[in-house]
């Protein structure tokens, strides 16, 4: 199991560096282009619905940071989570390499656990690189500009998105164990991801739609400026960790029952017909 875990991590070293430094670049661009003289103009735009829809707050520098950096870095990383979580089981089953692994002296739970842990380590590594990098960029601009967000505050705020990413990974693994192929798993998870993101923002704008926010993973991830002062709420972290745990267990159950290489729907179990 350890060999499989190490292989899964090693095979994603390039992704760790690429995504980690890519997300530093993304954050750095937005942190560095923030011009204090434009801030007054942003204030006029802050109540526009379109900004509310995509979760952007422009009332303060902290709001801007929370909106642009804390929302979009996890969103970009979620795209990686969708790709990686659906390719590691469903993708390998489609390509045929999973058959080799399943024929090894490993139980199904060991295979799934190794892959889930490896993906979690990879995403954690990407987040650490991206968070440290963005904290350094913030420290650099603090020399010239008076702002209230500390580099450590930005680091912890970014790291608080980890449970969100883990939840997406476990849902992706689960979908890979119940849907016929990787394409369907990735499509289903992408739809859920988009619905989750916009659903949470729309629920915040329309009172009658408020209950739908509880079905959105983003509801449990704080992207307001309070994250810099109050940190992530324990209840939100627990909720996301709980969701991740539930889907991990469901994935374990479904993977142990799955007929590898067949690629059928769960209800297409073999039936004796003659």
């Amino acid at each position: 199991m350890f060999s499989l875990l190490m292989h899964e991590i090693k095979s994603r070293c390039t992704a760790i560096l690429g995504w980690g430094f890519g997300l530093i670049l993304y954050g750095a661009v937005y942190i560095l282009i923030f011009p204090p003289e434009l801030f007054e103009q942003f204030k006029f735009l802050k109540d526009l619905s379109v900004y509310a829809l995509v979760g952007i707050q422009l009332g303060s520098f902290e709001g801007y940071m929370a909106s642009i950096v804390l929302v979009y870095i996890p969103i970009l990383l979620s795209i990686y989570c969708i790709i990686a979580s659906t390719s590691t089981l469903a993708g390998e089953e489609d390509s045929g390499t999973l058959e080799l692994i399943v024929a090894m002296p490993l139980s199904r739970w060991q295979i799934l656990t190794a892959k889930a842990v490896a993906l979690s380590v990879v995403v954690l590594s990407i987040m650490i690189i991206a968070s440290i990098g963005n904290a350094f960029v913030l420290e650099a601009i603090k020399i010239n500009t008076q702002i209230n967000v500390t580099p450590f505050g930005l680091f912890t705020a970014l790291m608080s998105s980890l449970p969100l990413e883990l939840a997406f990974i476990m849902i992706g693994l689960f979908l890979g164990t119940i849907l016929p192929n990787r394409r369907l798993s990735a499509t289903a998870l992408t739809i859920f991801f988009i619905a989750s993101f916009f659903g949470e923002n729309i629920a915040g704008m329309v009172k009658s739609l408020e209950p739908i926010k509880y079905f959105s993973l983003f509801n449990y991830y704080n992207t307001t400026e309070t994250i810099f002062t109050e940190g992530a709420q324990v209840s939100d972290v627990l909720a996301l960790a709980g969701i991740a745990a539930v889907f991990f267990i469901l994935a374990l159950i479904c993977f142990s029952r799955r007929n590898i290489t067949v690629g059928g729907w769960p209800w297409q179990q073999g039936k004796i017909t003659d």
Partner: protein
Amino acid sequence: MSSEVIIGTRDLSVYYGEHRGIKDLNLSVQKGEVFGFLGPNGAGKTTTLRAILDIIHPTKGSAALFGLDSRKHGVAIRERISYLPGELSLYPSMKASYFLDFLGSLQKNKRDESYLEQLLERVDLDPSRKMREYSHGNKQKIGVVAAFMGKRELIILDEPTIGLDPLVQRTVLELVLEVKEEGRTVFISSHNLKEVQTVCDRVGIIQNGELIKTEKVDTLINQQLRRLEINFRKEPPHDAFAIEGVKEISREGNLVLFEVSQDLDRLMEKAAPYGIIDLETKSVSLDEIFLAFYSPQKRGGHNV
């Protein structure tokens, strides 16, 4: 060969939804035996192997390896097995040497470096390149090396020589025979009768998901189809050769072509009165033998 049963299946059935993969398969492979599993594409060979290895769960019935139930003791069983899939897929960006190390560590092998080097040399493979740089044949060589390097008690090979050049095909068959000499067991799925004849002790013949025959290879060889062209001194009547296992294929005057699936005694007996000027045995391709065996009227598997 020992009487210890290495692979045993009881009413093993796999259905894909309502489509039958294999049905009520009862099979027994002894220790030290090279068992060939013959059948055309889609007959259920790969499904059987996957069900035995618990890659696919049986819809009905069970499989036991080394006396252990394949579903309950999968890990313990797979520690004693190596498997070469028929549709071998490899990680494109991985080097072959890393892949072999990786599989070795998953198999929990004690690495026998000299044996591995010997295998690589025998199949003429340089493992220092990435998978995507290898031809189909070379990828198959990697699979072959991976299957043999662990020196497992049971080696399961699904169409092992597909895509290999004749020299390497021969090497693979030699490796199988060496495994047999060491008292280990090989289960080899194929539709290549020639390779089955070369290495196997017994064969199981599968058609439409059902095991229609289990036969010693010697018997199978004796049942092979032959073609015989006889130039008669005088033209025999059309009903002169109504013998079981003899079929008249064509006739041009005194020259008659027969397809024979039995000993020639009876045919010779019937042919002698018309005078035999010349007699020629025509070679029948393996494809023809195969087609003859699986033709609908021979569903019972007789008169190969």
